[in-house]
Structures are given as C-alpha cells and as structure tokens.
C-alpha cells in the first residue's frame, strides 16, 4: 500500500482547515490547547507552520505555542504513522513477554536505526509504561484500541488484518 500521501509535509497544511479550527474555538489564548488537539488529530502531529499560524491567530508568540506543545506529552512534534502501536512495557507485561511482541512488530514493519516511525509513514511503534490493564498482559494498543494477551504470532495476525483493511480502503477511495 502506498501511504506517502498520508505523511503530512509541513508545506501541505491547509489554511482553510486551520482557519476553521480557530473560528470554531475562538481566537482567545485559552483556546490554544483545544486548537492544538484538533490539529494533532488531523495531521497526527503538530506541523510547525500550523503552530505559527495558531500563534498569529491567537496573538501569542510562536515560542509560547512551541512551549505549550512541548510541555504536554499528548502533543507530538514529529509526524506519527497512520497506525500508532503502543506496546506496554510495564512490569506485568514485561514479565509476560512484551519484549518479544515489540521485537516482532519492529521486524514485521521493518523499523530500523532506532526510529519509531516507518519510512512510509504507516506505523509508529512506541513502548509505554503500564496501561492499567495488567490482567490482559502483555497489552498492545493500536490507535487506542486495546489488544490483550499478545504473542508475536497474534500481533502478526492483527497486523495482517489491518493491512488488508487499509488496502480495501485505498481501493474504495
């Protein structure tokens, strides 16, 4: 599947979208966080020029917006993949084999050089601390959907299904 069009290059930020987000939330500084959330939702990260735009619209300096964007862990300054896979590495999951699951995913999606997002922008793979679902350990989430009792085999099947859906979706579109 070809996902390059999904990787949002900074130059591709849509002004009309940004404008509508600002219009919806108002141009008061207090609207900054909800606005950033909506931008992140659309682009899966905060493009620089979108942050500059928001700064301008809200009468804040770009440095202030950047400060807020780097303060909250929910915001990402790097483009994330279409699928964000989080592998829990909390104690329970670790003990029950989360590393093997993590390695299997990295191998399957061909993640190299310690990068967390694949070259084609399809996958971002991260480890996180306890997700609070230890009874299901080891736990993996894919775009916030929770998968429990993972094994290398099971995660490969899930990824197969995802890829099939993705291709169908691309064809329909």
């Amino acid at each position, binding site marked *: 599947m070809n996902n390059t069009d999904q990787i949002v290059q*900074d*130059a591709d*930020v849509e*002004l*009309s979208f*940004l*404008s509508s987000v*600002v*219009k919806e939330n108002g*141009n008061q500084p207090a609207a900054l966080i909800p606005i950033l959330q909506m931008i992140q939702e659309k682009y899966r990260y905060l493009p*620089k*020029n979108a*942050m*500059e*735009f928001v*700064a*301008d*619209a809200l*009468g*804040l*300096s*770009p*440095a*202030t*917006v*950047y*400060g807020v964007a*780097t*303060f909250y862990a929910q915001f990402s300054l790097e483009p994330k993949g279409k699928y964000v896979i989080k592998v829990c590495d909390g104690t329970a999951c670790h003990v029950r084999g989360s590393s093997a699951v993590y390695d299997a995913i990295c191998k399957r999606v061909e993640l190299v050089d310690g990068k967390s997002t694949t070259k084609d922008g399809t996958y971002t793979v991260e480890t996180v601390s306890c997700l609070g679902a230890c009874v299901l350990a080891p736990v993996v989430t894919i775009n916030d959907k929770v998968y429990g009792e993972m094994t290398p085999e099971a995660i490969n099947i899930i990824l197969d299904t995802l890829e099939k859906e993705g291709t169908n979706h691309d064809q329909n579109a």
Partner: protein
Amino acid sequence: MSQLTVNGKNVELNGEANVLEVVRKAGIDLPSLCYHQELTVHGACRLCMVEIEGRGIVAACHTPPEAGMVINTNSLVLRRLRKMALELLLARHDRECTTCSRSGNCKLQDLAERFGISDIQLKQDERKLPIDDSSIIIRNPNKCILCGECVRICSEVQGIGVLDFVHRGSKMVVDTAFSKKLSDTECVNCGQCAAICPTGALVIRSQVDQAWDALNDPDKTVIVQIAPAVRVSIGEEFNVPAGESTMGQLVSALKIMGASKVFDTSFSADLTVLEETNEFIQRVQSQENLPQFTSCCPAWVKYAEQFYPEYLNNLSSCRSPQQMLGSLIKKYYGKEQGLQTKDMYVISVMPCTAKKFEAAREEFTTDGVPDVDLVLTTQELAHMIKEIGVDFPALPETAPDQPFGRVTGAGVIFGVTGGVSEAVLRLGYEKLTNEKLEDVVFSEVRGYNGLRSCELKLNGQTLRLAVVNGLTNANKVLEDMKCGKVKFDLVEVMACPGGCIGGGGQPITNVNRRVRVKRGAGLYNEDQIAPVHKSQENPAVKDIYEKWLRCPGSKEAHDALHTTYKERNARCITVAATDHGKDC
C-alpha cells in the same frame, strides 16, 4: 499609616507591591534571582524566602504586604534553604567563571560568594547543550538558571516573545520557537534580554578583538564615532556616577588606543533633525504618510519590517545618525582627506546591540564596503579601556575632531526618550511658525513613561505627537491607530526603556530605572550647558550642506543620508494569508 515589622524594626507601608520591596526598603538586600520591579512576578528561584509569623516561610516577591505582618529575614532555616536553592542552581550550571564574560557582573556568582558556597554536595549535571552563536546575542543554555527574566522582558517590554520555556521537568530550557537559531527568529537585537539576564546565559557577541586588530593595523586609518548616550554611562564602569559626562576622557582613551579621528554622533543627529524635519513638514503639508515614525532605532525598524510592513511608508526615510555619519565619512570625508575606502576603518561606539545588526545591512554599504565597519557597545569599549590600564576618570579631556565634532544640545538629547521629538520640534516650530523659538525646552515630550502623547498648537495647526519606548507600546499605538482610536502626526519610537540611555549595550545597571533617569538627566544637562541648542544653528552642519549636500532633502542628501525598508517575514504562513486577524 499602616506598618509592619522587618526583623523587629517598624516599616511604613507605602503601596509596595510585595514583601520583597518592603524588605528592601527597610535596607535589607534580600537575595533574588527571578524578580524585576518592571516585570511580572515569576516566583521560581525561591531565594527571596522570608518567615512571616503565623504563615511560615513564603517567597517575598509574590506575597502582598499587609499591615501588622511580622517578618523575619534571618533564621537558620532560611539560611539553609537559601544555600540549598543556590546549590541546586549551581549543580546545573556551567561554572566556568574565568572564561565567562559576565564574571564579576553575575548575580549568581555574586550570591554564591555572598552566601559562602564553597562546596556543592549535589552531583554536577554534566549536560552540554549546544550554544547558539548565530546572532549578536549569544545563548548558552548551560548557564541558564531558568529565571525567565529574558522571556518576560522580550514579551512584556518588547512585545515579541522570541524566547519561552519549552519542554518540562528536568528537560526544561528557555528556547526559541522550534529551537530555531536566534538569527532566524523575530528577535530585533535590542539586547534587553542579555542586559537583564542575571548570568552569562545571554551575552553580547564581543568584537573587541576585531577592534584591536584594526587599531593596530598600520594600513588602516581608524575613525571612531561616539553616540550621545555613551558619554553619560561608560563612567559607571569606572566608579563615575551615572549621568556624569566623560566625553572628553573617551576621546583621550580612544586616541591612546590608536584612533586617528574621534567624531561625535550627536553631529549626525543634528543632520537627522534637519532631514527628518524637512521630510515631516512636507508630509504635513501634503497630508501624506502621516504619522511619520522616527527611524533612528534599528530594533524598531526591524520590528516594523516584520510586523507592520503596511506602515513602512510612514517611517522616516532618514538613516540613523550612526549610518549618516558612516556614509558621510566613506563618501565625502575620506575623499577630502585623500583616503581610499579600503584604508578607512569606521568604528562606532554605541549604547546599542541592534546597531551591530544595522551596520551590517546591505543598504548601508558604499561600493560594497560597509559604511560602519564595526560597532562596539559601551560595555565593549569599557573593557578595552580596562585592558590598556589607564585611570579613565583621570584622563585629560580632549575635544572630538572636526568637522564632525561640533554638536548642539539637540543632537545630544537624541540618546534619551523624547529627545528626537524635542530636537525636531525646535526646528519644526521655527519652520511652521516662521518665528524664532526662544524657550527651547519642550517639557511635553520629556519623561520616562513608555507611552506619552501630547498636542502642540503651532500657528493655528495642531500637531499630535506620541513618544514611545518599549516596542510593546509601539504595538499599542499601531493597533490603536489601525482601529481609528488615536491619530498622530509624529511618533517617536525607541525600543529600549528610557531610549538609548537604557540600550542593551550599556553597563548592566541599565536595567535599573533610577540609573536610566540619571543618565537621561545627564544628557539634558549637556543640552543645557551647550552653547547651541538647535540643530539648524550648528555651524558645522551648515558647512556640510554648503560643501557637499546643498540642502535638506536634496538628491545628494538623499543618496547619502536616506534609505529604504523591506518587508521581512520569519514565518512560513501568517494569518494575513487568510482573513482571520484579531478583532479590534
């Protein structure tokens, strides 16, 4: 009268904003690293802790004073806490004092000494964050104590907000947007952040070595110019009180160093008055491009180019006095003296860091060579004087060289907020009324508040003036103008608090309003004792027009003394690209 007690002594309350001010009024120098009277309170360094009976230990800077408070500033607990706070800062600080340009002038070093920190129990943080030396202000985050003074002065006084806190927890740093190099940001090079920084985390790039190289180069004729505000401040580095002029000693010191000529930039300030008033009167008569904004502050010029390109036609086209003089030296004076451009080296001594940026602008070159080769700040020149080891205050007084050494009081007050307006009025009055001006003092435009305005009736005509210092105030004037709330004919803008006397290159004490006011008074005093108070009566200026430039506004004057501006944008897209601006 309400009172409280500090260490058992009664202290009257008189509207002080916080306990820190009260304690200081009581004569106790409570330590602080993140408090500044003219900025909002941050309350992060915890050094200003005091004990208040019934409340325990509080940060004095953000505790409002109340009648009856019983305050103690000395106790074993406080002592321990202060030392601990300092040690924590020092454990994350690059403590290479001997090679730090703020050594001897650093609040952190000073407090470490005052509190006898001899040994730091904590593990030293060995992080080495990259130093940003892309600009005139050099940022070394390894020396930053996160006091946030730079963040606040840049956003509260200059209205720009180049810097802010980014990341969090142990990774927190003060940085630019997207960690850009400072030279790629909207920084206008005013240097106020470096002046207020308590440590060596923000320092001004030193060009002292280049100056020595030129002064010792047998093939170069070094010509120096000295800005008005320098003479009333450089003495502070040598225990001369602020405001006392040491112009004569300055000329002597520069001659000892090897300068062949020393000129006074107040001379070209007089020229600026003639050109700028001529331009202003034309605009008043045609009612075009009003208000006229002054253009002698390069920080303001860059600000306007970045944020208000639609007003660039309103800026006076006059070059700043520094650039006028540089241009005259390279274009006319050199020829007259039989000097080739390549043999002349023009150094200007300025209170200002933005002048370094201005001198490098391509508009200010003659045959590809900069009109002003090097700009030294007051601080840099003070260092050079210390290097040669002379007793500066005891030097004999030498007069500046001719023809650019003869000045008027009007040119000298350019260094203080309101000065340019007053100098222009001394000529404008005579032009607009055809009367001789007797009382040259325009107290309407004097003062130190950031935004002042007045109306003057001249010959049935009302002139509306605004005098601004601090770019936040310039922003306010521009926004109010846009909405039609205010209307002006002439707006003087200086970026630095108090005008150039508070410039970012001045001795570090310029962050103190009292010191700035003394320097300003020094300039007004120079005006008062000057034999001539009006630029138009400067005989040397008249000569220059006769010899080289014909008359104000002539083609020759335009080529040598005027300039153009260009829109600049440091951002990729702005709201102007859509219709989404802020409402009035």
